[in-house]
């Protein structure tokens, strides 16, 4: 059954196996081996790897949109950040009276701004199920409204890319404003607990890594199922010949819209898992630059394969961690160079190269 499920697709089987191993073995290493042992993973590395996994999920979501629908979305970070803010708002409400000002009702930044009442859109965020719903619903709603307008008007190509970029930029400017009620340029931070678990505790970090790994595996399998269905073939067809698909009787804009919305929800989950692991969310995450970086991850890994996006995100981010540690000033140049090299020499990314080497590359 399992073999048949991954028939002719050993890469997918391999990536699921590796992700499952990471999700299980790293926590074990942290628990079993004493600090100092070469096999020990510190709490810092656990959170770092957890963060990579959320980035991989984000890259996966972009691959659906870019690799399969052919929409070069330069604003995928917006959905990620919105999911992150929804989680951040829940975490803020969990602080309770332990803030600097100790106000029982308002988060610190609102006390600082001399606000008297909690804004209406913060209501309900005390409850995790509501916050969870918002992590999915807010990105989905934005993607739906945006996609509905853009795809129905048949905005495509570079114009669509620019609008998505503008979308995330506009959100960044809005969230920078204190009056928005999301903590302005400081964002939301100083979190204490998630579902009653102390965020500083190693065990919580391990649980977050395991949740991120599980979410990534589940999302990967869901995306794979989606793209192996007839819907996946319609989407692949419309990427290359949009008008032809329309003349076959398919409402192209609806296909794009639903994939776009689904991808936004995945990005929202990624953002929600990212925030407790890094301990902060601020408007900088909306920066267009961040969204461009996601495109680089997917391009490096190879778009249109799903696992390529995951590999690309993890490799580039690992490179970023290493390089910004050694020579922080050259990171952006390196990123730019990597993008140019990949675009010019490896249009199908590392996975494209691998598939060609193993003789399975298509057109």
């Amino acid at each position, binding site marked *: 059954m399992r073999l048949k499920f991954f028939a002719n697709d050993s890469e997918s089987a391999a990536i699921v196996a590796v992700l499952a191993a990471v999700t299980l073995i790293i926590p074990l290493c942290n628990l079993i081996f004493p600090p100092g042992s070469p096999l020990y993973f510190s709490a810092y590395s656990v959170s770092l790897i957890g963060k990579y996994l959320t980035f991989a999920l984000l890259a996966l979501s972009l691959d659906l949109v870019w690799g399969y629908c052919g929409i070069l979305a330069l604003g995928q970070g917006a959905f990620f950040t919105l999911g992150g803010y929804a989680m951040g708002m829940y975490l803020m409400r969990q602080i309770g009276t332990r803030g600097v000002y100790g106000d029982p009702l308002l988060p610190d930044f609102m006390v600082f701004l001399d606000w008297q009442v909690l804004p209406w859109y913060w209501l309900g965020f005390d409850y995790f199920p509501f916050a969870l719903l918002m992590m999915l619903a807010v990105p989905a709603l934005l993607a739906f409204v945006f996609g*509905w307008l853009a795809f129905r008007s048949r905005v495509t190509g570079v114009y669509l890319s620019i609008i998505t970029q503008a979308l995330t930029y506009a959100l960044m400017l809005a969230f920078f404003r204190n009056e928005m009620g999301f903590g302005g340029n400081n964002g939301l931070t100083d979190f204490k607990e998630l579902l009653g678990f102390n965020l500083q505790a190693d065990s919580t970090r391990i649980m977050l890594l395991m949740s991120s790994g599980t979410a990534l595996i589940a999302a990967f399998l869901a995306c794979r199922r*989606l793209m192996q*269905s*007839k*819907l996946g*073939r*319609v989407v*692949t*067809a419309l990427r*290359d*010949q949009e*008008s*032809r*698909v*329309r*003349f*076959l*009787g*398919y*409402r*192209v804009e*609806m*296909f794009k819209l*639903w994939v776009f919305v689904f991808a936004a929800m995945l990005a929202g989950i990624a953002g929600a898992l990212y925030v407790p692991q890094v301990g902060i969310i601020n408007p900088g995450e909306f920066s267009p630059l961040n969204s461009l970086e996601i495109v680089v991850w997917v391009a490096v890994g190879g778009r249109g394969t799903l696992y390529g996006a995951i590999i690309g995100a993890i490799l580039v981010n690992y490179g970023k961690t290493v390089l910004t540690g050694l020579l922080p000033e050259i990171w952006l140049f390196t990123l730019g160079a990597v993008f140019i090299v990949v675009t010019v020499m490896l249009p199908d990314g590392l996975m494209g190269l691998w598939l060609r080497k193993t003789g399975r590359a*298509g*057109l």
Partner: protein
Amino acid sequence: MNNAFIDRYHTFDFVRGPVVSAPVDVKHGVALYLEEVSVSFDGFKALNNLSLYINDGELRCLIGPNGAGKTTLMDVITGKTRPDSGSVYYGQNIDLLAMDEPAIAQAGICRKFQKPSVFDKLSVFENLELAMNAEKGAWTTLFAELSGPQRDRIDEVLDLIDLSLHRRQQAGFLSHGQKQWLEIGILLMQEPKVMLVDEPVAGMTHQEVERTAELLLSLRGRHSVVVVEHDMEFVRSIAHKVTVLHEGSVLTEGTMDEIQNDPRVIQVYLGD
């Protein structure tokens, strides 16, 4: 405020399923009515007061010099281009001008493009699967499984277009002539009432042209087929009735012999 938002029984387009239009009514024997259709692009009249009737089940050839409006005519019928004036009916009852491309395609009017447009990344089999006459909503396609009869239908079309041996091959690797046939197969899979076929034999070898002629002739009676073609020999081999377009209107209609002896046609093609 828009009433639609207050009316609790209002169904918005985006939750509605595919448009299920009434079946086309062709009891007068006419599948397509185009009356006084005009289209202009930046002052250039691509179609000029054109009227044309296509009978149910007939095979009609459209010829005319470049710029005569042949492709624009197909664009108007399939919903790609909106005419400035005139009316376009499918049977007596369906107003094509009120529909968009997917709705027109679902109603049974399909089109083969001038340049072969197949899905290069998908296999031959998958190309036909996508074209199949089935529900085409996003949710339905997510859970769609091919039924036995649907597989048989694909096999049947694969045989008909002589691509059975290439069923697993990516369409992008097919030869030009095979792509043309695959696109004809895509049309057949949709089980259309009306097929608009733009230059089906461009770039084909002599044998391929003959086979295509046979294929198109075999469709007569079951489908209305409109063929646009420059290859006069090919037109002669299939045409019963030929319509000549010139400067966006119908110049004349008749059998190939009548057309070829018509001084106006000779003038249009050869100049003074």
